[in-house]
């Protein structure tokens, strides 16, 4: 297995591009960066690499063990890499979608969204607690098909590198053909928005076609200013709080909830509560549509059912 980590090699490029974007912000939009926010985001990135070092070997070992049960012997050919990259991106779409629709997964992924800024440093705002979720399970089918775990890891690395450059407001739109197929700064700005229209949309990693295919695509509009972050903004630059706040929230909710609702605080979507005291993204969007039915009729028709567990019952 090759000892090759594309993300490690890309780090100097990340640093250089953040620096270039800062100079752009200095000249054009000084509010695009905030030093304490930048420091928090970059510290997230450093911490996530440490977490990856501590836990990554475990997942690789698990994948290597599972690989013995593979259906096919897929070698290290160029076409295998290309196919693996596409299928890994499909797996990423579903990991990411679950990351937004199941609170247990969201507790880890929320870290990436908790900045009210959207710049290249936000891209490095990666979780420390991904190992506590079951994200790796979404990639097991690739192992069982026969793709080597090392190949999957390399493809995932390139996927992550691709996603770096789309975290910017410095690029408005890419050429039309590119916007149609690939994830772009425009599509991903939508994903990081808290505007009701944009909540839980555009989960793609590299190829936006997955969102178009599975009904979660939303185009960025020039007439609607994007608000970045999370529905309940952190209001703190404290790194440790930023890392663990949702896990602490889950623990408190589970402790307080009646027994029959405890598990729902893990498995239902973020914002769900047994007493209806909070709002999920679907409820926020429904309220927004109700406030302006004519203007938002199109959006209403596009609302998709995204968490089957949540759809089985209403809060009691």
């Amino acid at each position, binding site marked *: 297995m090759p000892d090759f980590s594309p993300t*490690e090699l890309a*780090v100097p490029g990340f*640093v250089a591009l*953040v*620096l270039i974007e*800062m*100079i752009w*912000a*200095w000249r054009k939009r*000084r*509010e*695009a*960066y*905030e*030093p*304490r*926010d*930048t*420091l928090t985001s*970059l*510290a997230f*990135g*450093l911490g996530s*690499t*440490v977490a990856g*070092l501590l836990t990554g070997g475990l997942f690789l070992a698990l994948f290597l063990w599972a690989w013995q049960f593979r259906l096919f012997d897929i070698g290290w050919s160029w076409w295998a890499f290309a196919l693996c990259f596409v299928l890994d991106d499909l797996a990423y779409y579903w990991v990411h979608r679950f990351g937004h629709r199941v609170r247990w997964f969201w507790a880890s992924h929320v870290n990436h969204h908790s900045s*009210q*800024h959207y710049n290249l*440093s936000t891209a490095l705002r990666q979780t420390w607690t991904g190992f506590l979720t079951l994200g790796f399970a979404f990639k097991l089918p690739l192992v069982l098909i026969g793709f080597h775990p090392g190949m999957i890891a390399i493809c995932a690395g390139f996927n992550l590198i691709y996603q770096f450059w789309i975290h910017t407001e410095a690029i408005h739109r890419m050429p039309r053909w590119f916007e149609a197929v690939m994830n772009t700064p425009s599509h991903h700005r939508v994903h990081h928005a*808290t*505007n*009701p229209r944009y909540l839980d949309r555009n989960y793609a990693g590299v190829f936006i076609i997955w969102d178009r295919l599975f009904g979660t695509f939303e185009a960025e509009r020039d007439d609607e200013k994007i*608000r970045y*972050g999370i529905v309940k*903004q*952190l*209001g*703190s*630059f*404290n790194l440790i*709080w930023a890392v663990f*706040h949702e896990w602490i929230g889950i623990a408190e909710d589970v402790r307080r909830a009646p027994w029959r609702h405890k598990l729902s605080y893990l498995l239902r979507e973020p914002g769900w509560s047994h007493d209806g005291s909070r709002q999920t993204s679907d409820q*926020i969007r429904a*309220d*927004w549509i109700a*406030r302006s039915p004519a203007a938002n009729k199109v959006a209403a028709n596009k609302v998709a059912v995204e968490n089957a567990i949540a759809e089985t019952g209403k809060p009691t």
Partner: protein
Amino acid sequence: MGDIPPDLLQFAGSLGAILLLAGIAWSLKLGPRRRLDSDDEAREAGAEALDGFVPIAVARDRDGEAALLRDDEGRILLLRQHGSHFAGRLLGDTASARIEDGALIVDSGERRYGVVRLAIDQPEAWRDAIARL
């Protein structure tokens, strides 16, 4: 240098790069603080913090660093500066308020969001409204 594990060296290098980038952001004076210079700006920030929140009363801090907004349902939204943005909290029964040196001190009841000081007109009315929540 030969005795230092490569991972530790990489960690130290990354930490150095992070501090350097944050230092550059500071020295370029990026992230100017946003201020609420009018009630309309406070309303806009309120709608950003809580979608659909339409205030009927606004109390804006004289320095534009915070605001209290009340809607027709009696709900009170507290806004305070957070870097170059604002962060808001809909106050609940764990919130409290007191007056110190003529300014209203609002405790959101949430430790990490903290206590907010507002220099506003008629602080007593807002203190009492928060007490009724």
